[in-house]
C-alpha cells in the first residue's frame, strides 16, 4: 500500500511524438468541431505551426510509453478496480503541436490518507517539455483508492 516513502519517487521519463491522426481521433472522441483542431489549413490560418494539442490531451501523451497498470498496482500497491481519479490540473507555459516530440518527467509529490485510512491518495507531477527544451506545461494528477 502506498505510503509517504513514495514521495519523491521518480516514475520515469518518457517521450511521445504528437501525431496528426491521433489529434484528429481525439477531436472526434470529444466532439470537437472547431476546425483549428482537425484541419491544418485552419490551424495555420489561426497562427499555429500545425494542429494544436488540446488542453487535456497532454495527459494522454504522458501515459504513452508507461505501464500505468504496473505503476498503479506494482508501485502504488493499489487495486485497479478500487481506484478513482481524484484531481487533475494543468499549468500551461506554452503550446504543443503535431510533429512535436514531448518529454514527460514524472514523480510522486504527495501521499496522504483521509477518513481514517479508508482513502489513500497519491499525487504525481509531470514536467512537460518539447524537442527544443521549452517548458510546455506542468501536469498534476491525484489518484485515490477507496
Amino acid at each position, binding site marked *: 500500500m502506498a505510503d509517504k516513502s513514495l514521495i519523491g519517487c521518480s516514475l520515469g521519463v518518457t517521450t511521445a511524438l504528437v501525431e496528426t491522426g*491521433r489529434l484528429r*481521433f*481525439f477531436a*472526434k*472522441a*470529444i*466532439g*470537437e468541431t*472547431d476546425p483549428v483542431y482537425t484541419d491544418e489549413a485552419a490551424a495555420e490560418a*489561426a497562427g499555429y505551426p500545425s494542429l*494544436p494539442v*488540446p*488542453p*487535456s*490531451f497532454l*495527459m*494522454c501523451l504522458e*501515459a*504513452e510509453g508507461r505501464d500505468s497498470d504496473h505503476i498503479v498496482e506494482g508501485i502504488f500497491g493499489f487495486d*485497479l*478496480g*478500487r481506484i*478513482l*481519479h*481524484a*484531481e*487533475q*490540473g*494543468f*499549468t*500551461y507555459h506554452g*503550446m504543443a503541436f503535431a510533429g512535436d516530440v514531448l518529454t514527460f518527467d514524472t514523480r510522486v509529490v504527495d501521499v496522504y490518507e483521509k477518513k481514517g485510512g479508508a482513502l489513500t491518495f497519491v499525487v504525481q507531477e509531470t514536467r512537460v517539455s518539447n524537442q527544443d527544451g521549452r517548458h510546455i506545461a506542468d501536469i*498534476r494528477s491525484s489518484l485515490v483508492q477507496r
Partner: protein
Amino acid sequence: MSLPRFNDLQVGFELPPLVLPAVNRTTLALYAGASGDHNQVHIDLDFARKARQPDVFAHGMLSVAYLGRLLTAWVPQTSVRSLSVRFTGITQLGHIPTCSGRVIEKFEADGETRVRLAIRCGNQYGDEKLIGEAVVAIA
C-alpha cells in the same frame, strides 16, 4: 471568434455553456481509443460489475476535455494559463455532460491581465461531476 475584453468583463460573467450529447458506449469506446486510457472499468461491463459498479462509466478525463472545449470555444487556446478540477461524481451512461464557467476574479500576473473562472461539469439532473478553476489571459 469575438474576443472578450478585460475591461468589459465583470466578475460574475457567465461563459456560454457547453451541453454535450448523452454519454453512450460508443462515446466511451472512442475516448478509450483516442486517449489511450484503456482502464477496463470504462470498457468492459463484466469488469465494472466485479468492481462493484452497476455498469461501465465515463472517463473523468473525458469531462476535463469537455471543460477544455468550454474554454477554447471562448478564447484562443494560447490564452489558457491553467485548468484544474476535482472529480466529485461519476458520469454514468445516459448522462448529458453540461459545462459552465463564471468569472470569479480579475487580476494581473506576469505582466498580463487575467481572469480566474470557476468551472463545473454536471449532468442533466443538476448533479455536479467536476468542479474546478481555470485562469485565462485576456487583453
